[in-house]
C-alpha cells in the first residue's frame, strides 16, 4: 500500500490524492462487506440464503398465479419482450402460456427449455425480521421481574439490555464523576497512591476479577438477577480515570471565586465542574453504554435464565437453536446491532475525543 508518507495538513498532489482515495475506499469496502452481507442475507428467502455464486441483492425466481397454480416466469431467448408462465414440464418440452405483451396473452405453446430465460425478481423478505423477533420456541415467561408474563424472545432481551445498560451507565457516570472530582480537586493523604491503585487494576485481566465475584454471587444464589448484571460492572476505574483527566484540564481560577465565597466542595462539583464537563460526561456515557450493551462474557457467566438474558447472550442462544437458518440469524444480528450503531453515530464526536483523552496522558 502506498500510503502518502507526509502527514502534513497540506493538500496532496492530485495523483497521490487519487491513490489515497483508492486505499481508503478499498479498506472501507472491506470493512463494510460483512455488514452488507448480513443485511443482504437477512432479507433473503430461506431457500435462497445459501447460493453459489453469492447474490448481493436478494432475488428469487419470478412467479405468477395461473388458475390457482404458482408458475415460474421466463422470457423467450429470441424475443425478450415476450414473457411466459411455465405451466408444466414434459419430456417433449415445457408447456408455456404467454402473459405479456397483452395482445398475445393466453396463447399457449410447447417450447424447449433452452429457448427460455428464467426471470428473477428482486424480493426483500422483511418478514424475516418479524420471525426472528418472535423466534418461535423462545417464548419467554415471567420476564422483567414478572411484569411480562409471556413475551417474544427478542422483546425481552431488548428490554433487559435497555434496563441494564441504562442502570450501569447512570451508575458509572454518577460514581465516577464524584470520585474523579475527589482525585482531581481535593487534597487528602494517600490520594495519589490510591489513584495509582485504581490505574493498576486496568491492567488486570477481567477474568481474574470475574471468577471470585461469580463464585460469590452463585454462593449467595444471586446469579440470574438484575443485580448480578448491574452492580459488579457499575464501578468503573476507567471512567474515574477518564473524568479525572478531563477535570484536570478545567482551570482552577473558575472555582476560586466560588470557594472564596464559601461554596462547599459539593457546590463546586455540582455547579461548576459538572456543567463545564458536559463533553467528557457525554464521552463516558457513550463508552459505558456501548460497552455494557455489547458485553458478552459477564452476562454469559451470571445469567442462564432466558427471562434475564441481554441481547448479546440472547443472540448467542438464538444462534444455538437456529444454527442453519442464516436468514433469521442475520436478521437477528441486524436487530441487535441497530441501536448500537445509532448511539455511536450520535455520540461519535465524544467517543473519538474520549479515546484521544485516555491515550494522551496514559
Amino acid at each position, binding site marked *: 500500500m502506498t500510503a502518502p508518507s507526509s502527514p502534513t495538513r497540506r493538500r496532496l498532489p492530485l495523483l497521490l490524492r487519487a491513490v489515497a482515495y483508492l486505499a481508503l475506499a478499498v479498506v472501507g469496502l472491506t470493512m463494510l462487506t460483512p455488514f452488507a452481507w448480513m443485511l443482504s442475507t437477512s432479507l433473503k428467502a430461506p431457500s435462497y440464503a445459501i447460493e453459489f455464486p453469492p447474490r448481493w441483492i436478494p432475488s428469487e425466481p419470478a412467479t405468477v398465479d395461473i388458475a390457482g397454480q404458482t408458475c415460474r416466469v421466463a422470457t423467450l431467448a429470441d424475443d425478450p419482450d415476450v414473457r411466459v408462465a411455465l405451466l408444466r414440464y414434459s419430456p417433449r418440452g415445457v408447456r408455456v402460456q404467454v402473459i405479456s405483451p397483452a395482445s398475445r396473452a393466453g396463447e399457449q405453446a410447447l417450447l424447449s427449455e433452452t429457448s427460455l430465460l428464467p426471470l428473477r425478481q428482486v424480493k426483500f423478505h422483511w418478514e424475516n425480521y418479524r420471525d426472528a423477533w418472535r423466534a418461535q420456541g423462545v417464548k419467554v415467561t415471567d420476564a422483567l421481574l414478572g411484569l411480562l408474563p409471556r413475551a417474544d424472545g427478542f422483546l425481552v432481551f431488548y428490554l433487559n439490555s435497555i434496563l441494564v445498560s441504562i442502570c450501569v451507565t447512570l451508575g458509572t457516570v454518577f460514581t465516577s464523576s464524584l470520585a474523579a472530582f475527589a482525585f482531581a480537586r481535593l487534597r487528602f493523604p494517600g490520594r495519589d497512591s490510591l489513584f495509582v491503585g485504581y490505574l*493498576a*487494576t486496568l491492567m488486570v*485481566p477481567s477474568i481474574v476479577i470475574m471468577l471470585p465475584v461469580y463464585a460469590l454471587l452463585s454462593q449467595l444464589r444471586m446469579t440470574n438477577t438484575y443485580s448480578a448484571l448491574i452492580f459488579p460492572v457499575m464501578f468503573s476505574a476507567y471512567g474515574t480515570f477518564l473524568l479525572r483527566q478531563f477535570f484536570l484540564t478545567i482551570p482552577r481560577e473558575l472555582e476560586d471565586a466560588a470557594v472564596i465565597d464559601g461554596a462547599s466542595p459539593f457546590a463546586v462539583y455540582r455547579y461548576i465542574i459538572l456543567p463545564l464537563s458536559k463533553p467528557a460526561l457525554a464521552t463516558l456515557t457513550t463508552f459505558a453504554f456501548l460497552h455494557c450493551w*455489547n458485553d458478552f462474557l459477564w452476562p454469559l457467566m451470571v445469567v442462564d435464565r432466558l427471562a434475564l438474558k441481554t441481547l*448479546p447472550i440472547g443472540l448467542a442462544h438464538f444462534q444455538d437453536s437456529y444454527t442453519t437458518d442464516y436468514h433469521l440469524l442475520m436478521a437477528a444480528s441486524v436487530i441487535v446491532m441497530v441501536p*448500537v*450503531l445509532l448511539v455511536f453515530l450520535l455520540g461519535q464526536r465524544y467517543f473519538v475525543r474520549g479515546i484521544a483523552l485516555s491515550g494522551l496522558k496514559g
Partner: protein
Amino acid sequence: MSQTFTAPSPPPRSPKAARAWRQALPFLLPNLLGFLAFTFLPILACFGLSLTDYDLAPIASLRDLREQINFVGLTNFLRLLGWHREAGHLVANDAEFWRYLGNTLFLMLGIPLSILGSLLLALLLNQRLRGITLFRTIYFLPTVSSAVAVVIVWKWILHQQPNEIGLLNSLLLEFGVHHPPDWLGSMAWAKPAFIIMTLWATVGGYNCVLYLAGLQGIPEELYEAAALDGAGPWTRLRHITWPLLSPTTFFVVTMSIIAGFQGSFLFTAAFLMTAGGPAGATTTLMLYIYNYALSWHQLGYATAIACVLFLLVFGFTLINWRFGQRLVHYE
C-alpha cells in the same frame, strides 16, 4: 504501575488529614466501595482461591466452608506448570495448558500487523481529503458493533460445507483459487481465520483513533522546516512522524498486549464459532479458564490459570515498560 496498593483509608494522622479525608470521603465512597467490592478484593480473592480446591459446591454454614474449601498450597500451580517423567520422557502435567498458551500467543501475532495497519490508516485519515469523517466512521464500525453479531456473520462468511459455500470462499473461487481452505474446520486454517477476523475488527478501531490524535498533535512547523532542508516524504516520516508518535506507539503496544492476552473478542469468536475447536485449535487461555470454572466447576484450578494469565500480562507489560520506554522519544 508496579507500586503497591495503599490501604484505601489510612488512619488519619493529624486533625488536618482527618478533615481532608472527611471532606473527600462522600465523593470517593460510592465509587471506592464498589471498586473495593468488585475489583480490588476479587483480585485478592482470585489469588487466595487459587490455593484451594474449591469446586463451587454450595456453602450454607461455617462447617461447609471448612469442608468445601481446602487449602492445598501450590498444588494447582504444580499441576498447571509442572512436569513429570513418563516412560523416560518429560511430560507436562497439564499439556493442554501449554497448548492453549501457545494458541493465545500465536493469535497475538496479529497484533503487530493490526498496529501497523492502524498507523497506515491514520496517516491516510490525516490527509486533507473530502469525506474523511465518513471513512473514519466506517473503519470504526466493527469496534462498536456487538461482537456476537459480528462473529455470527463471520461464521457465515467463513462457512464451508460440501454444498454450502460461505462468502469468502465464493469470492476466492471466483478469483481462481480452486481449493479454498475449510477455514473453521481445519487445524491449519482456523487460527489464520481468527487472525484475519481480528484484523478486520481492530485495525480501524481504538489504535487508529489514538494514532490520528497523535498525528494531529505534531506541529506543522516541523514538517515545513524539514521540507525547507530538503527532506523528502520518507525522511519526514522516518525522522519526524515516527519519533514523535513513539509515546502513542508505546501506549498502543501496552494496551494491545493486555487486550491480546484477555482476547475477549477471540473468546466470543471461539465460544460461538468453533467451541474452541477443531481439536482445541482455537482454544485460548480465556476459554480454558471459562471451561474450568463454568463447565467443570473447578474454581480453584480456574483461578490458578487466571493468576498465571495475570502474571503473564504483568510480566509482558513490565518488559514493555523497561525496554519500550527507552525507545520512546519525548519532546
